[in-house]
C-alpha cells in the first residue's frame, strides 16, 4: 500500500530520516518494501500482513509511527456535528449477519465538481485517479481512515428501499465501471425495487452511481462480514481496495467519524445520521501477566515500560494488566498477542540471543527419517559416476502418454506442462537424457524422489545412455551389497517401462524391491532418445527398511583354500546365474564361484573351496567336484 509521508504528517510529528523510519516500521512488523521521492514528498510502499487491517490506512500507519518513535498522535477534530436518527425516509432491510453495521447519511444539494488540489494530488500519489469530488472523497477518506465508504445517487434508488441480502447466484450486475458480472451465491448485495444496486464491499453498481448531474446522495460507511466479502471477491477474481480492507475487518468503532469527515468534505445539506446495527461494538478486555511477558520474551522489563508501550498503541491499561482493546485492533484477543506487541515495539534486534538450556530430548520423534542413510545411498551412486538431479513432481499428460501410464490429476494445474503428479521418475530421467545427449556421450543420472500412485512413495531411479545391462546390474548389485541387503534377480517382463527381453526384477525378502535393465526401445523413440538406455529403479522406502547396517567381523581364514577352474557347457536358455547358485549350494566348503571366461555356451567357473578349520586335501574336494560335474551332463 502506498502512503505519502506528507499525509502521515497530518497526524504525527516525524523527525526521523525516511530510511530510518522505514527500517523501524519494518522491524515492528509493517514491512516497507521500498520508498521513493516524489517532489519534496516521499512515498512508502508497504506490505501489510493479513492480521492488520488498521495498517491499510494513513492514520493506522501514523499511529504505529507515534508508538515506535515516541511522537504524539493526533486526529484533528471534525467540526461537522449531526444528530443520529433513522428518519425512515429510506426503508432499510439489513441482514446483520452479513452487515453488522451500516452507517449512512443523506446529503442533499451536492455540487459535483473536481476535488481540491490537495485531494487530487494525494490521490495521485497513492495511485488513484481523481474523478469528481464525490467519488474522490470516498477514496480519500477510506485511504485516510481505513473505513471503506460508498456513495449512491439517492435519486436513482427505486422505491425508496434498500435491502441488504446475499445473492442467490447468477444475478446479473453491471459495476460502475461498466463491466458485467454474474454474481456468485453468497455475495453481499443491496437491492432496491427489483434491481441489484451494489456488490457490497467490492464494487458499486452502475445503476446507482453518482454522475455529473447528481444532486442528492446517500453516503454509507458499512461493516461487512469478512468471509462473505472474501469468498465473493475470490470467486469473481475481483479485488478492490475496499474488499482488501473488508476481508481483514474494517473498524466498526469508527464509522460515524469516517462518515462525518467525508460529509464535511462533500458539503451540501447533510441530513441526520442513520446508524443501523444489531448491537454496539464494544472494546474488549485481554488480561496479561507481567511474569508471562518476561518469561515468553526472555527479557526483563519494567512494568511501567510495558504500560507505556501498550498505551502508545492506544490500548488502555489498568492494573497488572487488564488491557482494553480498541475496535481497530481485531488481531488482539489473547495474552500472546499482547506479548507480541511489547516484543515488536522493543524490536527483536534489541533482544539478547540465547540458546535453549533444557536437556536434549532423546525420545524418537514420530515420522522420523534417516537422512544419513539417504546421504550414504546418494554417495554410493556418486562414487559410481552418477550425477543427481531434482525434477518436478508435476508432469504433463504428454509424458504420461509416452510412458503409457496414468497419473493423479490436479484440479487446478497452472499449465498443460504440469498437470499430473508423476507415477514414475523415469519419464523425467528420459527427458534428462534427451536434454544431455547433444553435449555428452556418457550420461549417468539419478533421482531420489517421490512417485505418486495410490499413495506417495520414495523411489530411487537411475539412467545411463548406452547398452550397459551388465554395468547397471553391477551398480545396483554393488549398491545393495554395500547396504547389506540380500536379494535375488529374476527375469521379468511385467514392467512395461523396461525392455521385455533385457530386464529383471530384484526381489528381497520375497518382495519386489525394484527393476533394472534396458529401457523399452518403444519408449525411447517416443521420448526422442537416441541409442539404447539402461537404468534401474528401486522402491526406496523398502530399501531403507531392508538395509542392514550391522556388521560382524569374520576372522581371516588361516588355512589356504583350494582354487580350481571348471568348464561347463550349458544349453541355450538355461540361466547361468541359476547354475552358479546350484554349484554354490552343493557344499558348504564352496566359498566362492566366479565366472572367469565364456566361449559360446561353454562357461569356465573358478571355484574356491575353503575350510576355516583345517587344510583341505584333494580327498576332501574330490566328492564335491564330482557332484558339481553331475549337475550338468557335460561337466568336466
Amino acid at each position, binding site marked *: 500500500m502506498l502512503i505519502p509521508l506528507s499525509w502521515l504528517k497530518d497526524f504525527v510529528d516525524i523527525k526521523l530520516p525516511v530510511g530510518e523510519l522505514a527500517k523501524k516500521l519494518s522491524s515492528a512488523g509493517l514491512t516497507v518494501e521500498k520508498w521513493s521521492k516524489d517532489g519534496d514528498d516521499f512515498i512508502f510502499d508497504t506490505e501489510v500482513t493479513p492480521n492488520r487491517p488498521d495498517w491499510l490506512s494513513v492514520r493506522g500507519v501514523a499511529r504505529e509511527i507515534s508508538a515506535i518513535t515516541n511522537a504524539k498522535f493526533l486526529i484533528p477534530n471534525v467540526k461537522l456535528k449531526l444528530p443520529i436518527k433513522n428518519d425512515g425516509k429510506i426503508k432499510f432491510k439489513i441482514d446483520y449477519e452479513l452487515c453488522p453495521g451500516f452507517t449512512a447519511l443523506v446529503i442533499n444539494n451536492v455540487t459535483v465538481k473536481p476535488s481540491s488540489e490537495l485531494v487530487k494530488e494525494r490521490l495521485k500519489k497513492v495511485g488513484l485517479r481523481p474523478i469528481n469530488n464525490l467519488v474522490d472523497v470516498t477514496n480519500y477518506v477510506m485511504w485516510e481512515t481505513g473505513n471503506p465508504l460508498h456513495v449512491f445517487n439517492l435519486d436513482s434508488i427505486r422505491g425508496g428501499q434498500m435491502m441488504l441480502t446475499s445473492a442467490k447466484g447468477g444475478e446479473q450486475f453491471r459495476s460502475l465501471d461498466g463491466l458485467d458480472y454474474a454474481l456468485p451465491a453468497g455475495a453481499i448485495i443491496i437491492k432496491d425495487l427489483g434491481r441489484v444496486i451494489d456488490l457490497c464491499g467490492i464494487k458499486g453498481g452502475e445503476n446507482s452511481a453518482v454522475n455529473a448531474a447528481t444532486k442528492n446522495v446517500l453516503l454509507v460507511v458499512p461493516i461487512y462480514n469478512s468471509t462473505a466479502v472474501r469468498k465473493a471477491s475470490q470467486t469473481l477474481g475481483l479485488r478492490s481496495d475496499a474488499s482488501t480492507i473488508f476481508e481483514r475487518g474494517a473498524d466498526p468503532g469508527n464509522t460515524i467519524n469516517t462518515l462525518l469527515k467525508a460529509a464535511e468534505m462533500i458539503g451540501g445539506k447533510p441530513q441526520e445520521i442513520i446508524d443501523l446495527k444489531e448491537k454496539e461494538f464494544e472494546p474488549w478486555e485481554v488480561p496479561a501477566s507481567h511474569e508471562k511477558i518476561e518469561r515468553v520474551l526472555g527479557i526483563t522489563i519494567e512494568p511501567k515500560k510495558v504500560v507505556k508501550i501498550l498505551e502508545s498503541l492506544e490500548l488502555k491499561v489498568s492494573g497488572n494488566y487488564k488491557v482494553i482493546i480498541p475496535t481497530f485492533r481485531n488481531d488482539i484477543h489473547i495474552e500472546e498477542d499482547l506479548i507480541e506487541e511489547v516484543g515488536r515495539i522493543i524490536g527483536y534486534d534489541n533482544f539478547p540471543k540465547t540458546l*535453549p538450556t533444557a536437556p536434549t530430548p532423546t525420545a524418537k*520423534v*514420530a515420522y522420523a527419517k534417516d537422512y544419513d542413510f539417504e546421504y550414504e545411498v546418494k554417495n554410493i551412486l556418486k562414487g559410481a559416476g552418477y550425477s543427481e538431479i531434482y525434477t518436478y513432481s508435476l508432469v504433463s499428460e504428454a509424458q504420461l502418454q509416452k510412458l503409457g501410464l496414468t497419473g493423479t490429476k490436479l484440479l487446478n494445474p*497452472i499449465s498443460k506442462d504440469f498437470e499430473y503428479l508423476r507415477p514414475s521418475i523415469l519419464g523425467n530421467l528420459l527427458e534428462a537424457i534427451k536434454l544431455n545427449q547433444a553435449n555428452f556421450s556418457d550420461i549417468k543420472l539419478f533421482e531420489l524422489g517421490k512417485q505418486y500412485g495410490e499413495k506417495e512413495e520414495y523411489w530411487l531411479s537411475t539412467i545411463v545412455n548406452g547398452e550397459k545391462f551388465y554395468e547397471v546390474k553391477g551398480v545396483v548389485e554393488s549398491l545393495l551389497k554395500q547396504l547389506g541387503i540380500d536379494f535375488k534377480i529374476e527375469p521379468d517382463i511385467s514392467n512395461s517401462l523396461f525392455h521385455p527381453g533385457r530386464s529383471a526384477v530384484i526381489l528381497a525378502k520375497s518382495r519386489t524391491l525394484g527393476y533394472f535393465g534396458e529401457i523399452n526401445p518403444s519408449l525411447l523413440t517416443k521420448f526422442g532418445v537416441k541409442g539404447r538406455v539402461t537404468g534401474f529403479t528401486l522402491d526406496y522406502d523398502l530399501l531403507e527398511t531392508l538395509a542392514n547396517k550391522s556388521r560382524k567381523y569374520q576372522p581371516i581364514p588361516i588355512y589356504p583354500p583350494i582354487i580350481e577352474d571348471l568348464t561347463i557347457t550349458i544349453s541355450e536358455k538355461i540361466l547361468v546365474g541359476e547354475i552358479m547358485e546350484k554349484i554354490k549350494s552343493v557344499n558348504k566348503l564352496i566359498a566362492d564361484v566366479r565366472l572367469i571366461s565364456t566361449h559360446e555356451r561353454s562357461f569356465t567357473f573358478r571355484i574356491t573351496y575353503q575350510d576355516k578349520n583345517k587344510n583341505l586335501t584333494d580327498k576332501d574336494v574330490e566328492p564335491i567336484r564330482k557332484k558339481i560335474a553331475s549337475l550338468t551332463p557335460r561337466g568336466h
Partner: protein
Amino acid sequence: MQEKLINIKNEALAQIINARDSQELEKLRIVYLGRSAGKLTSIIRGLPKLSDAEKSVIGRFANEVKKIIEDSLASQELLLRDQKSQNITETEWLDVTLPAIYPPVGHLHALTKVTHDVLNIFKSLGYQVADGYEIESDYYNFTALNMPPDAPSRDTQATFYVGEKILRTQLSGMQVRIMEKTPPPMRVVIPGKVYRVDDVDASHSFEFWQLEGLLIDKNIKMTDLLGTMEYVLKKLYGEKIKVRFDATYFAFVEPGVQAFISCTICKQKGCSFCKGTGWVEIMPAGMVHPNVIKAGGLDPKKWGGFAFCIGLSRAAVLKYQIDDLRILTNPDLRILKQF
C-alpha cells in the same frame, strides 16, 4: 688349500663388483656357489677328504668365504637396483602433462548438499529429522495451524487441489502431526518439497524445497528462538554475515518474526536478488501459537516452543550464487558437474 680359497674369493669379488646386471650376478652365483659345479661348492664338497685338523680350519674358512661372496652378491644386487632406479628417469620417462584417466566422477545436487549442511547444524543442536506427506489434508496444512477455512492468511498460499486433498503449501502441518504422536519435549526438523500455485520465473516456482523446525519444551523464550536462528544462519553462511529480525505475522505463531541476512550475492551493495535492499528474507519463525499446541494435543499452559522455516531452494541459491531458481530443477550435466 687356503690360498686357493683366497684366490677364489678375490676373483669372485672382483667379478661381482664388475657385474652390470642381475643376470650376470646370477651367473656368478652359479659359477662360485652353484649346487653342482660351483667353484666354492666343489671345495666344500672335498672337505671330508681332508685330515681332521685341516677339515676344521679349512672348513671354517670356506664357510667364511661363502658368506663373503653371498654378501657381496647381495650388496651388488642392491647397488645395481639403485643405479637402475636412477636410470629410469631416462628409460621410463612419461609425459606427466598428458590428460589423466579419471575414476567415475558423479555429483550430488546442490540441494542435497545444502540440506545435508543444514541437517548437520540442527543435529548438533539436538534436533531429530522427520519426513511428511506431500499430499496433505486441508486440516493439517491450514486448519490445525490456526488458519480456519475463512482465514485471509490462506490467500498468501495459493493451493493445488488433488481430489479431496491438497498439495502441501508449507511443511508446518508436520508440527501438529509430530506433536500428536511424540511425547514432549521434542526437537525436530523436517525437510521437504512444498507446492504453491505460482508461475515459474527466476525467483518463483510452483515446487520448492523448505525445512521446517519445531522445538517444544517448558519455559522456552523468544530469545532462545532468536539465538537459535542467529546460530544456524551464521553456521550456514559464515560468521561474517549480518542477521536482522523483523516482527511479522503468521497465523500459527505468536509472536512472529522474520530473519534477514545480509545479501551474500552483492555484499549489501544492492542487487536484483535482494531487490536492492542489501537484505535477504531467509527464515520466518515464531513462538508456536497456543491453538497449534492444542491442535497437537498438548496443554499450552504447560508446553511451549518455537517453530521456524528455512527455504532450502533459496539457501542453495544463496550458497552457490545461482541467479535463477530454475537452475535447481534443470538436469543439464553442464550445471550438475559444477557441484
